[in-house]
């Protein structure tokens, strides 16, 4: 049984993908949760897991290209976060930045180790679509997935964080440990390459 997480992630979100109306309240709540965990209340960590399970798993899947192992990797990310929580400094970064940095490093290591396995399933058919349309759509999704997996890792992670997680460039720069200009350039190059692949695919079809 699975939760369907759709929609975008802007800062704190929960496993259902629904944003709380008061994001600022959530941030305060988040620092309270972290404090409680550090004081020995391990059960409070569940709140952080529930909030970030969707975004972290999605980021890992999209960077590593591994649909099968992304939950196992996400579990490793949360356990690493639990163990290192004492080193998190709220004055240096947001909790989401810190957590995404761990997730980024784990998914980059996974991507280096194995061949990409994730291939997008075709989107659900609408009533107006012909079988040919469905096949064509599935093909272009696969073509873009392949192109994403073929991107250099630095471009891929920056692109995934910007386009699928909708994180601000400044936050991505912190996660990547790179300068703002470098991150913008990586995202732009990744986007150009994917658009070029799409054009090639369109011309061939």
């Amino acid at each position: 049984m699975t939760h369907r997480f759709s929609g975008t992630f802007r800062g704190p979100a929960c496993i259902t993908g629904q944003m709380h109306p008061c994001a600022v309240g959530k941030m305060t709540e988040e620092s309270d949760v972290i404090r409680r965990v550090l004081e020995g209340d391990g059960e409070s960590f569940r709140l952080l897991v529930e909030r970030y399970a969707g975004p972290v798993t999605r980021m890992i899947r999209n960077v590593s290209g591994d649909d099968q192992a992304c939950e196992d990797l996400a579990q490793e990310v949360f356990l690493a976060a639990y163990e290192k929580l004492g080193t998190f400094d709220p004055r240096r970064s947001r909790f989401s930045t810190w957590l995404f940095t761990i997730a980024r490093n784990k998914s980059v290591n996974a991507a280096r180790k194995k061949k990409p396995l994730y291939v997008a399933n075709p989107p659900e058919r609408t009533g107006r679509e012909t079988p040919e349309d469905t096949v064509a759509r599935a093909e272009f999704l696969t073509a873009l997935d392949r192109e994403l997996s073929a991107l250099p890792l630095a471009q891929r992670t920056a692109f995934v964080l910007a386009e699928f997680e909708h994180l601000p460039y400044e936050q991505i720069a912190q996660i990547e440990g790179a300068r703002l200009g470098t991150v913008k350039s990586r995202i732009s190059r990744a986007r150009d390459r994917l658009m070029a692949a799409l054009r090639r695919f369109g011309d061939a079809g």
Partner: protein
Amino acid sequence: MKHEEMFNTWKRHKERIAVSIGFPERVMTHVRERQAAQQAPAVSASLLRRVVARPWAKAAVVVLGVLAGLVRIVMTLDLILRA
């Protein structure tokens, strides 16, 4: 379909994620295990500190260890002789 539209369709598709309902519980099971593991050495460490601080306690631990070793040797010899 126009390229931009196709690109956005792909992006929407990639934004979807399905996380197992049991995922948070799975993580929490490991968290509890780690918490228990972290607490256990704390007890041993405090006990060790107390033993180290008392010479008679250190001697008692050594004697107990030697006795346990002797008992084990006797039990093993007994097993071999009876076989």
